[in-house]
């Protein structure tokens, strides 16, 4: 039985749903209440993997970072030792989508070989037309980037998928 531990970070603007995505993934719960994260909170989750040669189990250490605001940028030292990040944006706030590019640069600046998954979150707030529009409007054809995934921490849409896909890539 081989267990591997990997650190990933949740990065994005404040209030986009980083904490909610973790909560959905780890505790299968969601709350409408907003409690902003300060500093960092680390959660763990064992991710079941499809049968692989060398690894039986993956322990994900998910770092929930304080969201970026006008007044405070993301502290790069948190990203050290992180094999991957999940960059989250809020589909109802276009500026959070614009900031994805900044977060990408920040992460690749610290971990040039890392993996990134992009979550366009709160898609439950969009109708189907808007959803297709959002997904197609984002051009991210680069290696080491997965997505964008249209996620919803509220309904659970694509939440497991985005974490496990990212985990798989980090192990490969």
């Amino acid at each position: 039985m081989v267990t591997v531990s990997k650190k990933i970070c949740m990065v994005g603007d404040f209030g986009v749903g980083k904490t909610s995505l973790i909560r959905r993934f780890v505790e299968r719960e969601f709350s409408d209440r907003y409690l902003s994260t300060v500093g960092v909170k680390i959660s763990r989750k064992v991710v079941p993997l499809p049968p692989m040669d060398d690894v039986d189990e993956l322990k994900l250490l998910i770092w929930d970072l304080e969201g970026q605001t006008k007044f405070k940028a993301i502290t790069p030292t948190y990203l050290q030792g992180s094999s991957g990040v999940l960059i989250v944006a809020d589909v109802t706030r276009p500026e959070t989508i614009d900031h994805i590019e900044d977060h990408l640069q920040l992460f690749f600046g610290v971990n040039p070989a890392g993996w990134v998954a992009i979550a366009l979150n709160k898609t439950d707030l969009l109708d189907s037309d808007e959803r297709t529009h959002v997904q197609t409007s984002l051009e991210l054809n680069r290696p080491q980037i997965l997505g964008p995934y249209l996620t919803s921490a509220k309904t659970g849409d694509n939440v497991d998928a985005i974490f496990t896909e990212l985990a798989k890539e980090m192990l490969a």
Partner: protein
Amino acid sequence: MSHPLKPSIPHHLEYIITDPEFLIQEFSLGIGAILQESLMVGADIRRFLPELVGSEAIAHQVFQGQLPYFTIKEVAHYGHNNPNHPVYIDLNLERLNPQSLILFINDVTETAILRQSLVQRVNETELLLNALRRSEDYNRRIITSMGDALLTTNLSGNIKTVNPATLALFGYHEAELKNQPLALLFPDGLPTSLEPQSLQATTIHEDIEVNCQTKSGKILTIAFSCGIIHAQGDNLPVVIYIGRNITARKRVEQEINAALAKEKELNDLKSRFIAMTSHEFKNPLSSILMSVELLEEFALTWHPDKRLRHLQRIRQSTTQMNNLLEDILVIGKADTGKLEFHPQPLNLRQFCQDLVEELQFLAGESHEIILHLHGALAPQYDLDDKLLRHTFMNLLSNAVKYSPDCPRVDFRVGEVEGALIFEVEDHGIGVPEEDQPRLFESFHRSRNVREIKGTGLGLSIVKRAVELQGGKITFRSQVNVGTTFTVCLPLEAGWSS
């Protein structure tokens, strides 16, 4: 900056010393209380500080001296001894000596919680503002793009906002409407149904149809929905009007109604026609039938005079039916637009004399028809003799028919100021005032005609014939005094020659 190896660590700092593999060698006394963990020498530090999982490689770099130190600030740590309340700690990992790493741990819970409430408030405000901006933008876009006119006023009826549809509909610029009374948009002031005072708060008043006026004076029919909105806070109430231009719809409705009315009228006409014809044809037909039967039976035995009387009755009835048929044909032509005006040079004097002679012959001894030719008539006028004949045959025979006890009928003809004027005057039973407005309608017969026969078509034919010639017919009448019809045919250039 690198910490030099100090013989003793300042006592206010809490720390854990481990070997390069993170096995605990030593820790300060207060550390258990901060972390809410029961630490043990020899155990893996990651059992108590899972926050360090994943930092092994970095720790190794620090140990090798490749990195001076490694810091994680404000880590929320949930200790085993108090899992529901996080402590916030700053972690700072340094190399202590060739055998050990030292992890300084600083409790920053108090400042973190303070900062959390601050960040919370700032972020919530930002999110709220963002949502507001979005909904405001959204509302504005809806209002600007909506096809219906939207206006708001204050309670005194002064316009506060208008959308582009309003401006397009009424043809004003925004500045011309802002702060102006809403009454500006109505031809006779603000209708009471739209006054802010008559609008109840809390209900929406729908589809109030009123006439509005554009800047250029055009009248439009607008259906308004309106209501009073009490915005939150101390703001004054706002009256909202949403108007839809239904002018076109109204016009179509009116056209349809007119067409329906017309159709109904035609139907009425048809039933009156059937009622009249069956009645009018029945009398002469039965008298013909009766005479024929009598003749069949008694022709051989009767005196020739009696036979002749019956033959004459048959002829008379046949003529009556023939006249009726002719009238019906003319009316039918006029109704379907087939009655046409073909003016040709006509000697009017001769025409009138012939007509009077013919009618005098028909009227026999009982009446005298007197023709008065006034002034100098041109030798010829461009006139339609068929239409003229329809007109005056009817008017003159009516004059005779409806004056059974007064023998005199006057027929005056003259040219006055570029028009031909004809007057037919009798001294008969006259037309009651109630019947005068409908005198020219088909099948309308005055109530005082009693047993005098008639189809009710004559005057209707006359009116159409006169109008077809571009003329006008009027009359004045008094019961038991008489009736005068005046026909005026304007002579356009080239009519007289």
